[in-house]
């Protein structure tokens, strides 16, 4: 092989051809020269050694056989393009080694021109770039497999490197994207924010991030999608940023989901705000997390003002200790809170509320939140109170009516001991004024005055108790004694109407808790009812049997059985204005029921076997009374 044209050159350089050949073959690179038409004129020994071809095989267009078939066509095309332009060029392509393995090479070609500028020869080298190229391919593979758009930017914002996803998204080639300012694709609405944020990052070179925000980017087809941008700066040792690495994650779906949630939250909020109750969501420790608008309106505060608010300043001072104790109990035990109390409205007025707070638990049964609903029960409460007062007044009226009915008996009750007192007093005087005075007899008379006077006092006390309408009080009461007292009051009435009464009391009956006057009223009403029910009984004894005993469930059971006509409809007996009596208002038994309900007892009526009616009621025993 004898490269023509070189000789002159080397001669001019005063270098011998032999020396030149040695030199070219020694260079640790593949060196070649070609004619202006592109055919190989010379390849050095290293080139031949690498490819394992002979000079005859390689020269002219033979070298193309060593090029990887995938690269061959594009390499030749490129080669022709620079031959035509006469400009230097370079191209990467794989070249087969003597052992058949392909390695990446950088082909570089440079034209050699004569004095007129015409190309007389092309000289070039093939540099082994296989390691770098493989690393680059690996990197590309990594980049392209990242589920996001990746780009590196210069500090001035020009794109350096992008992955395939990025190219695909924007519909440009990797080459086209280089040097492109991505800001062009940012949604106009987001642009001011994006620019100002990025500028802020630039202005503070010491900032460590995180550098991230959400923005919309225009896709190739013109549609904007939401992305989450994360940026990481690469810095010089002096801290100045040399490169930005960007990762853009498509969050369109998440955004849409969030949007849906936001919409449903808004919907929920509207719903919660239109609930006619005060709704509150509390953290596990009881701090306010959310309140509905009615609550804010009621207290006249903003959610911000309620932050860290315990609410104790709006709870009525009388209710506060109970509420606090109940809430403390709920928090400690995780049980629901259920209490009625008063809350101060913005205008200072207190209204009654029914507060219910339920815990929300996670899978591990830990309380994560409390849901609180406060229902305004003020009107209800007032109605209840009015009803209670009406009932109370009605009971009182009934009491007075009963007393009026009993007035003859009461007068007798009082007059009886009084008559004895007066008679004894006269006797006493007569014994004293006798000649001689009979002092022993006078003393006896005087002693009886004292005894009967006390009796009269006792009668008056009992009747006062019947009349009195003190606030209901709860005291321990002996049921047997209570019944016996009422029966005693009715002794005359029963004698007059030929009614026999027998009492069967369990002597070990523990006390009950209740209001003496109300319970006397109850027993009195039931007994009067029993007595009246027997008015028409002529063919058999008129009897009332009273039983008082202990019933399971820690209650006293009292039964009043008469031998009257019996009830046709025992269930209706307790309805107000239901009366089987011609003159009855039908309030007596209704009042009995309201009294017993107030005492947490039960009251019922049943027809007795063998005629008559049995009225039964229970009263809870005083707590702490062991069974």
């Amino acid at each position: 092989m004898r490269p023509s044209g070189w000789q002159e050159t080397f001669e001019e350089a005063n270098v011998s051809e032999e020396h030149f050949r040695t030199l070219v073959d020694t260079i640790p690179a593949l060196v070649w020269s070609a004619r202006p038409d592109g055919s190989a004129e010379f390849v050095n020994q290293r080139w031949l050694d690498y490819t394992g071809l002979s000079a005859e095989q390689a020269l002219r267009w033979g070298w193309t056989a060593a090029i990887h078939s995938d690269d061959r066509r594009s390499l030749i095309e490129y080669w022709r393009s620079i031959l035509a332009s006469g400009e230097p060029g370079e191209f990467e392509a794989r070249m087969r080694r003597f052992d058949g393995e392909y390695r990446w090479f950088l082909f570089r070609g440079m034209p050699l021109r004569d004095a007129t500028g015409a190309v007389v020869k092309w000289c070039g080298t093939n540099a082994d770039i296989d390691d770098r190229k493989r690393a680059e391919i690996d990197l590309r593979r990594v980049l392209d497999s990242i589920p996001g758009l990746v780009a590196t930017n210069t500090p001035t914002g020009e794109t350096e490197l992008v992955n395939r996803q990025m190219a695909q998204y924007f519909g440009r080639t990797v080459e086209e994207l280089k040097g492109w300012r991505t800001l062009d694709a940012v949604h106009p609405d987001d642009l001011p924010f994006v620019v100002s944020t990025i500028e802020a990052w630039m202005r503070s070179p010491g900032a460590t991030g995180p550098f991230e925000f959400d923005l919309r980017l225009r896709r190739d087809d013109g549609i904007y999608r939401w992305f989450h941008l994360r940026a990481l700066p690469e810095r010089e040792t002096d801290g100045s940023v040399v490169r930005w690495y960007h990762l853009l994650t498509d969050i369109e779906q998440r955004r849409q989901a969030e949007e849906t949630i936001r919409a449903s939250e808004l919907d929920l909020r509207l719903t919660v705000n239109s609930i006619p109750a005060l709704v509150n969501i509390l953290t596990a420790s009881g701090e306010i997390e959310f309140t509905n608008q009615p609550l804010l309106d009621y207290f006249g505060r903003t959610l911000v003002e309620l932050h860290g608010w315990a609410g104790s300043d709006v709870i009525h001072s009388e209710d506060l200790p109970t509420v606090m104790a109940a809430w403390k109990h709920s928090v400690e035990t995780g049980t629901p809170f259920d209490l009625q109390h008063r809350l101060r409205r913005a205008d200072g007025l207190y209204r009654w509320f029914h507060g219910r707070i339920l815990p929300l638990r996670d899978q591990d049964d830990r309380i994560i939140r409390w849901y609180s609903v406060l229902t305004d029960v003020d009107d209800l409460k007032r109605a209840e109170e009015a009803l209670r007062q009406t009932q109370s007044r009605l009971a009182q009226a009934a009491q007075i009516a009963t007393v009026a009915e009993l007035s003859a008996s009461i007068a007798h009750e009082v007059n009886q001991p009084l008559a004895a007192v007066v008679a004894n007093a006269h006797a006493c005087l007569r014994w004293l004024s006798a000649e001689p005075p009979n002092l022993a007899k006078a003393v006896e008379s005087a002693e009886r005055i004292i005894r009967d006077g006390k009796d009269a006092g006792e009668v008056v006390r009992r009747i006062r108790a019947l009349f009195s309408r003190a606030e209901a009080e709860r005291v321990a009461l002996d049921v047997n004694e209570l019944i016996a007292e009422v029966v005693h009051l009715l002794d005359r009435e029963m004698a007059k109407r030929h009614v026999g009464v027998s009492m069967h009391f369990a002597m070990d009956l523990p006390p009950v808790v209740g209001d003496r006057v109300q319970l006397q009223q109850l027993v009195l009403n039931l007994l009067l009812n029993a007595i009246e029910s027997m008015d028409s009984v002529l063919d058999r004894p008129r009897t009332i049997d009273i039983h008082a005993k202990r019933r399971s469930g820690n209650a006293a059971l009292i039964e009043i059985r008469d031998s009257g006509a019996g009830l046709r409809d025992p269930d209706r007996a307790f309805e107000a204005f239901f009366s089987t009596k011609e003159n009855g208002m039908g309030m007596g038994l209704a009042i009995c029921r309201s009294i017993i309900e107030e005492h947490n007892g039960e009251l019922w009526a049943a027809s007795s076997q063998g005629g008559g009616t049995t009225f039964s009621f229970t009263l809870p025993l005083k707590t702490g009374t062991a069974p």
Partner: protein
Amino acid sequence: MNGESAVVFVVDDDSRVREALSDLLSSMGLRVVVFGAAQDFLEYEKPDTPACLVLDLELPDISGLELQQELAANGPPIVFITGHGDVRSSVHAMKAGAIEFLSKPFGDEELLRAIEAAVALDRAARQKRSELVELKRHYDLLTPREREVLPFVVSGFLNKQTASGLGTSEITIGVHRGQIMRKMSARSLAELVRMADKLGIARPE
């Protein structure tokens, strides 16, 4: 009080009242017997002396008014006492012949006046009753024929008129008349007429 000593019966179911009245009446020097129930009083063997009954209107077994009806004319005069003092009962009681109607509590003078009135009434009634018994005893001594003659005599008929009326002789009527005057212990015709009136002897037409 004069004459036979009177006894006061008290019926009241209230022991306090019984004790007090017993004491009071004793202090007045009266004999008192007390009962807790009407039945006890009815069964009691009563002495043959002037008496009065102090009766409680409201009794457990039978009421005072019922007892009053039961006793009727045979019982002693009644002084009612009541703890009720209701008007209707008192009207009934008074109409049925009660002496007095006292509302508890009452004063000793009121009671004493009522008892004295009742006893006086009983004494008079007893007096009246004992005279009639005496007259009847005399009347029982008369023969049937003399009982036939008596109405004519006390009606002012002459012996002759009576004899023709009865179909006998004037002499026989004269004998009967003498026997009647003697057996009846009548000192004059006028006295015999009063006796016949008390005995309720009917005059001939």
